[in-house]
Each structure stands twice: as C-alpha cells, then as structure tokens.
C-alpha cells in the first residue's frame, strides 16, 4: 500500500531544483482557484543552482534470453584490468564507466525460467501465484518511495514495440511476470509504454504554452479526477475484500496523476531541438527513440527513475535486420549448438550492448555544471537468465554504467561470488542515497559496487 505517498510528498519543501516559476505561481497570476499543495517557497529559476550537486538518476535496462556464455560474455582478469567479451566491442570506448559482474547468481525460488528471471530482475523475489501476477516492490520503486523526487513523473516505464497478440506468455504463468519489471506493490505492476511518441508526450506535455489554455485544461482535468475519487469512495463498500488491492491501486494511480498535474513540467527549452519520435517505428528505430526519450527525460529532470524493458521476458523479437537469417530472438537462444546459431545469438547480445553504448554516449554528452549526466547516473542492465539455452541463473550478465554521483567506482570487474542477488539490488539503492534498511531477503548491501 502506498496511498499516503502523495500526501507526504506535498508537505516537503522543494529543495534543490533550479526551475522556472511554478505552475502554482502561474495559476495564481491567471486568477485560477484550484487547490494546490502548499509549497514552502517559490524559487525563481537558477536562484539555487550552482552549489547543489546534480541529482542522482537510476536507470534499469532489461534484455531477455541471456547470452551464450561463450566468447560473447567471456570476462577475464580482475578489477580495472579486466577484459570484456566479444559482445562488448561497442562498450570498449566507455570502459572506464562500465563495470561488469562476475559470478552474480540469481535466486528465483524455483527453476530459472523466463518468468521467474524477469520477475526477479528488479525485485529479487520469487513468484508462485499462477493466476494473479504477484511479485514484490521493485528496487526502482523502493528508491522512488524513499527519495520522493519532486519531478513531473515519479518514474517512467518503457517497453518494446508491441507484440500483435500481446506480450509473450510463458507456459503455466500469467504473462505479467514477463511483461513487468517494475512493481509499486506486490500486486501493482508499472506497465510499460510501447510507443516512443506516447512516452515523449508524457515528458513534454503537448498543448502549447498559452497560459489561459493550460489553466483551463488543468482545471478540467482536476475536476475529472475529483469526480473519479468520489466515485471510488462510493463503490468501495460494495466490493469484496479481494478487490481492495485493486481499488487501492487505482486510487493511488489517480492520485499520482493528480500530483503530476501539480508538478512543474520540464522547461520547454530543455527539449528544444528534440524531435517527436512519431509512431509505427521498426524495433531498432523504436529502441533508439526510446533511449532518446529516456536520456531527455533525465536531462530535463522530468523524472529521475526509469525502467526500460528493451524487450519482454521470453521475448522473441525479429532480428533479421541484423542479417542473422531467421532471427527470432528466443527461438535462436534455444535453437541448437551449431556455430551459426550461436553466432546469431551472440550478434543479438552485441546489438543490445551497442544500445547501452548509445545511451552511455548520450548521457556523457550532457554537461551538468562540471559533471556529466553519466557521472550522476546509475545504469543497471541485465537479463532474466545467464545462459539463454539452458535457462541457467548462474553468472547473470549484469552491467553497471555511470558514476552514481561518486557512489560507484566504475570500470571494474565486480566479483560477486557468494553475494546474494538481493544484496546487490539493496546496494544499488544505497548508491542512490536511498539507505533502505533491507530489501527482499537482504539486510546488508553488497559492498563491492
């Protein structure tokens, strides 16, 4: 349950962000009477800039079906002297910002199939329910809960191009376990956006800058949501206890949208020059567009927490565009031990690493007053299984990129032998300055980040 979140966050003074005049200031000027949260102070743009360090950002990138665990992911050496695999060629220029895990094993509470591995990626939690998707709060949401950043969006959740018949479904499990990596509560997944254009519009709310138009729109939306909240209260007594979680989730989501209405949108000038991505993109174009939106959302401080399922668990995207013949990802990951098939799977892993390199390059190009966006970010990338063929959960292909605002010591091979998977997720939260006392089964954060 997290219904109290919006209440608590509205009590907090806005502390660090240099921003334009708040929406509240501007609504007052427009003479609009709308109940808005009390803010401690209204600070003109730039007044507090300079002394404050850049806020930390957390990005989780998921790719499915693991690796071949052959030369593609052959990590050797130790510490900063480590050597990467053949799939990592595109990352070589960024090696000082890239750490890779060795011997980090998943703990899925059962055979490591795709559903278990995907559900565990950010939760460290096992799954059991075969009817209702139930996991646990994911680390990105635990971080968001504790940091409660005063950004337009509390967090942003992105996904791949749509599958025509819906996200892939694993035998015996609800497909939600493959579809969702971010969970606000055990029963409340954060379903990802499958359109880069829709994601772009979430960050840069369309509709122009005419203050009268914007004020009228805000008033109408607030009126609609006020009505919704009254209706939820009215039907609640008529529902069974089974529905309490669902109604609570709906209520929480509505309140979050209400909060978005009150939050400041990013300065329109931040995104100037960035192109709206459009609809109907191919998978590779969509991926690039999503990474662009992701980087822009961080750069403009529209959100500080992003998860991106580059494909869903059990994903079977067509990689024919790589020239790998009949290149359906999941099919290839299980198709045999012939050198050609292995090379095709390795080619797909390489492609995902190229996408990471693209994002890292974008983050590194954003200067935030002496440091780059990459310096202040933690990018955690990984997969549901280690060896895609056998579904092994041993030696997961997990990567860290960025400096975490000084909390990370990047550019190393991180030996996680003996560490629990939960403790690594907990350590990520601590590196984000979200000192959770525990996460999933871990109470002590992994010390080796």
């Amino acid at each position, binding site marked *: 349950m997290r219904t109290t979140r919006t209440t608590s966050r509205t009590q907090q003074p806005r502390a660090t962000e240099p921003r334009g005049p708040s929406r509240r200031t501007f609504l007052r000027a427009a003479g609009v009477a709308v109940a808005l949260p009390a803010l401690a102070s209204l600070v003109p743009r730039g007044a507090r800039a300079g002394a404050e360090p850049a806020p930390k950002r957390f990005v989780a990138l998921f790719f499915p079906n693991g690796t071949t665990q052959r030369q593609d992911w052959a990590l050797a050496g130790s510490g900063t002297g480590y050597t990467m695999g053949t799939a990592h060629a595109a990352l070589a220029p960024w090696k000082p910002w890239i750490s890779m895990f060795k011997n980090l094993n998943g703990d899925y509470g059962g055979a490591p199939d795709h559903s278990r591995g995907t559900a565990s990626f950010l939760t460290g939690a096992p799954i059991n329910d075969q009817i*209702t*998707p139930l996991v646990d709060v994911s680390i990105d949401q635990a971080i968001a809960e504790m940091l409660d950043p005063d950004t337009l969006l509390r967090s942003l959740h992105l996904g791949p191009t749509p599958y025509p018949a819906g996200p892939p479904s694993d035998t015996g499990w609800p497909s939600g376990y493959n579809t969702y990596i971010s969970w606000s509560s055990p029963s409340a*997944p954060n379903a990802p*956006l499958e359109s880069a254009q829709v994601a772009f519009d979430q960050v840069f709310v369309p509709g122009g800058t005419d203050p009268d138009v914007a004020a009228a729109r805000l008033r109408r939306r607030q009126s609609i949501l006020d009505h919704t909240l009254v209706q939820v209260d009215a039907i609640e007594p008529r529902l069974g206890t089974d529905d309490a979680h669902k109604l609570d989730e709906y209520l929480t989501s509505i309140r979050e949208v209400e909060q978005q209405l009150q939050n400041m949108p990013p300065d329109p000038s931040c995104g100037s020059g960035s192109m709206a991505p459009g609809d109907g993109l191919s998978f590779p174009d969509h991926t690039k567009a999503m990474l662009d939106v992701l980087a822009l959302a961080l750069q403009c401080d529209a959100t500080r927490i992003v998860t991106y399922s580059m494909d869903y668990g059990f994903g079977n995207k067509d990689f024919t565009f790589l020239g790998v013949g009949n290149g359906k990802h999941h099919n290839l990951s299980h198709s045999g031990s012939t050198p050609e098939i292995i090379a095709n799977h390795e080619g797909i892993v390489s492609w995902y690493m190229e996408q990471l390199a693209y994002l890292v390059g974008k983050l590194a190009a954003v200067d935030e007053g002496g440091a780059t966006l990459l310096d202040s970010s933690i990018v955690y990338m990984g997969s549901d299984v280690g060896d895609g063929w056998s*579904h092994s959960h041993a030696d997961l292909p997990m990567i860290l990129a960025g400096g975490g605002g000084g909390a990370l010591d990047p550019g190393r091979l991180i030996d996680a032998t003996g560490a629990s998977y939960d403790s690594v997720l907990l350590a990520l939260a601590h590196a984000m300055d979200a000192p959770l006392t525990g996460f999933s089964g871990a109470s002590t954060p992994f010390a080796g980040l």
Partner: protein
Amino acid sequence: MRRSIATGIGIIALGLPLLVGCGDRHGDAGGTEGGSSSSDGGSESGEDPDACAPVPARVGLQRLTRAEYDRTVRDLFGVTSSPANAFPPDSSTAGFDNNAASLTIGPQLASLLLDAAEAVAAQAMADQRDEILVCAPAQDEACARQTLSALALRVYRRPPTETELDDLFTVVQLEQTEGDGFDAGIEVAIAAMLMSPQFLYRSVPSNSMGLLSAGEVVELDDWALASRLSYFLWGSTPDDALLERAAEGVLRDPDALRAEFDRMLADPKAEALYEGFVGQWLQLGKLAAASPDPASFPEFDEALRADMLEETRRFFEDLRARDGSMLEVLNGTRTFANAELAAIYGVAGVEGTALVAIETDPTERAGVLTMPAVLAMTSGPEKPNIVKRGVWLAEALLCVVPPPPPDGIPPAPDPTPGETERERLERHRADPSCASCHQLIDPLGFTFEHYDALGRWRTDDEGQAIDDEGQLPDGRTYHGAVELAELLASGPEYPTCVTDKLVTYALGRTTTAEESCMTTAIGTETITADASLSDLLWAIVTSDAFQTERMPAQ
C-alpha cells in the same frame, strides 16, 4: 424463470491452468488435482448438468481490456480512432487478456486513460452533439440532468443513482461557472464518466444488488447480466436494444434472454468472439513468430502469413454463420483458401489472392488441427518442431499444461546423421529428467508428422518413412491427425477443455476445480455432432457460473 442447470454433486478436477505432474504417466485432465474417479474422465461423459453443485464465484474488479475499451467507445460515441493503442499492454492469465486477475491500472495507464477520456469526450461532442443533447436548446438544470442521465445509462451500463447524477451535475456546474458554457460542461462530464470506475471496471456490482455479505450468492440483476452477455459475445458494451430489455426487467425470462442472445450472436459485432476468444484459445499470436527459412520455403512471405491467419478467421466466422458444431474444429473439411493456401492443402483449381471456400481431403485433413497457421507456428525454420506441436495440442485442446522445464535441464541432443526427429527425441527421453515431461508432450507432437513446416502433406521426412503414431495422455494410441480427431470427438477431454476456456473467457476469471463438473457437463452435451455453437454458448450463458456471483468469504 431461468432454470438452473446445476444442482447436485459430482466432481472431477479440471479448471485452472492445470500443471500436471509430468512424471504421472496418466497426468491428464482428471489425474492430479484429486477427486477424479478415473484418469481419463470417461465416467463423467454425458453427465447431466443438473447433477452439478452450483459453485458460483466472484469475478474481481475487471477493467476493460484495450480492445474492449476501443470497441466500447466506438459503440457509445462512434469513436473509431482506437485510443487504447496508446495504453500500456494488457497481460494475460490462463491465456486470456480479459482475466480480471491480470487487469490493473498503474499510474502510466491512469494518465493515458485521462488523455483518452478527454479526447473521446471531445470527439463525441463534435460528432454526436445533436444525439447527446437530448433536450436542446434548453440548458437549464433539468435539461442537464436529463442529458447526463441518458449518457450515464449507456456509459455505466445501468441507470445512474441520484448521487451519481448529482456528482456529474457538479462537474457540469463547475465548468459552466468558469464560463465555458453548457456544451463544455457536458463534455467534461462525459470525460468524467469515462474516467469513473463504473465505466472502466465492467464488474462493479449494481446498486440493486445491494451490499453483499461474505459468502452470499446473488443472481446478477438485468443490468449486470446484460453487460456480461454483451462483453462475452461482442467484447463491447450493451447496445440500446439490450439496455431496453434490461430496463424492462425481462432478461431473467429465458425466452426474452434467448431472443437477445440470438440477435447478438447474428450481429457482425459477434466477430469479437473470434478476435477475443479464438485467437487466444488457439494461441494464434504465435504465428507472428514463425520464421520459415526462405531458402527452403521460398513461397512463404508476409502475405502468406496473413493469409494463414485470415483462414482461421474465415473458418470460425463461417462456423458461426452456419451455427455449426465445435467438433468441426477437430474434423471440419470446409475451410477457406486462396491460390497460395490451396497449394499447401494440395487442392487444385483455386486461383487469385482472395480466400474462397474449399473442401479438403478428409483422409489428410482435420479442421484446425491441420491448418497451415497452426502447423507453421509450431515449426522451426526448416522443419516441424515436434515438441512445440505437442505442447500446443496439450495446452489448447486438452487443457493439459506442462510445467516449466526444471532446473539445470540439459539441452536436447543434436541430431546425428541419418537419425529421424523421432529417434532423436527418443534418445532425449532416455534421460530421466527429460522423460518425465517429454513422454507426455512428444507423443502428441508425433501426430503431425505428415505435415511440413508450412502445413503441406508430406509422404516422407528427408527420405525417412513417416511414423505418425501418437499417444494421448491416458495411453490410447492412434495414427495421425485424422484418427486423433476421431478419438477426441468421442471423448470428454476436448469438449471439457474448450468449455473450460470459453467459461474462463466469458467470466474473466479462471474456473474453480469444483466447476469442472459444469464444464464437463456442458461440453459433453453441446460439443457433439448434433449440437451447435449456439447450443454451447447458450449453455454457458444460462449456467449458474454466468448468472450469479458469490462474494468471497471475509
């Protein structure tokens, strides 16, 4: 009054996505969850539905799926822009995306629902202003309430309460106070309705059902029954005619209900049964992932992939139009093909790209079992995938769901020169850790050995003779798809399985183990050579499971 088809007692275990213990050689529908009197379920065959205990259960809050949302705003306001395309994907439980258990509303969806509500309301007022403003040019409070009442009846799928009307009128007033006029007030109120739980969840109990106590069983009122019927047959909201019947309070009368049922099943909107039910039941989404090797199958292209899918649609639309038997899924020889598909079927004389009705060879073909779509989507790039074909047959037609592969399982062995697939898989099953599941799956997959990766009949497999001996989970053996169809047409497994899936789809929840008595009874009675699709659907609509709700125990 409606006659309940369920009283008395009789239980076998089916229902729920059934995870059989693969080690159980007889791990079929009756075998593992206890209570079965026989492993093949044969003793339940033909059981009178009245012999089943009534075991209604509550559907949780059931959000409209993306497809249902789009159809609903289309039918309410003529909006055909598919606003739900912008929503995050729905996920599925037990293979169906309308299952209440998987339908949630997170913050991103809530934000996009608000966008959609505003956009739909604006378009509705632009396109249907004259229909919506029922008392124009009046703009007083009485007119506003009359307008809102008529709108809410359709949007909420039942008459609004006085309080609900007051709440909507408050929205209109607020907007009017801001000087945006009557029309703008109504537009915002429409958006407010579209954002309300009464619209977004199609299972909110009506007021007339009162406050239910734990464990209490109640009959759905006419409004709730109309909604359930409409979303079952149309995947969309009740139309004005159905709402009128509900307002008259006649839907508990079997004749009145049957008249609506017949009218709706004959309506083109009932194609939603194909889009919503058949596609998910038969897992036809997997066809998108089929990737026949261009060198081996130069005739395969995206047009042929689309034709294969179109054939399945035409087959079921034809079945619905003729009100044929659901046994035709197993043994039908009437299907639809263009030149490319006819070539796969080996049927001469079909030209052009448009699909036309054909008769297939009954010694080689058996309904959906041997359709190119099914055979292609269960094949690898070069050749059929026996394991995939076996899993499909087990899941889709027998409701036997193999569990996920166990931990640390070794990959299947590579083929050795001259070895058939059957021999390779037999070598695979020699490993006990593999055998437990694959001795269930593989013998089902061998059924289709006469069909290549596009679904063409083949007389040999790269020079090796075809061996299409298959085996059902209860041990019965047969040769090929045609013989399998005969076996399945005479036993309770397939009828029970299809009924279970239809009930799961109709109710938006998984069936309970106790309900397997009902699904077996309905299936064995209405999936026969003499019974029709409408008999099956009608039996479901008149079942206790469909017509009642039970509040969960606190």
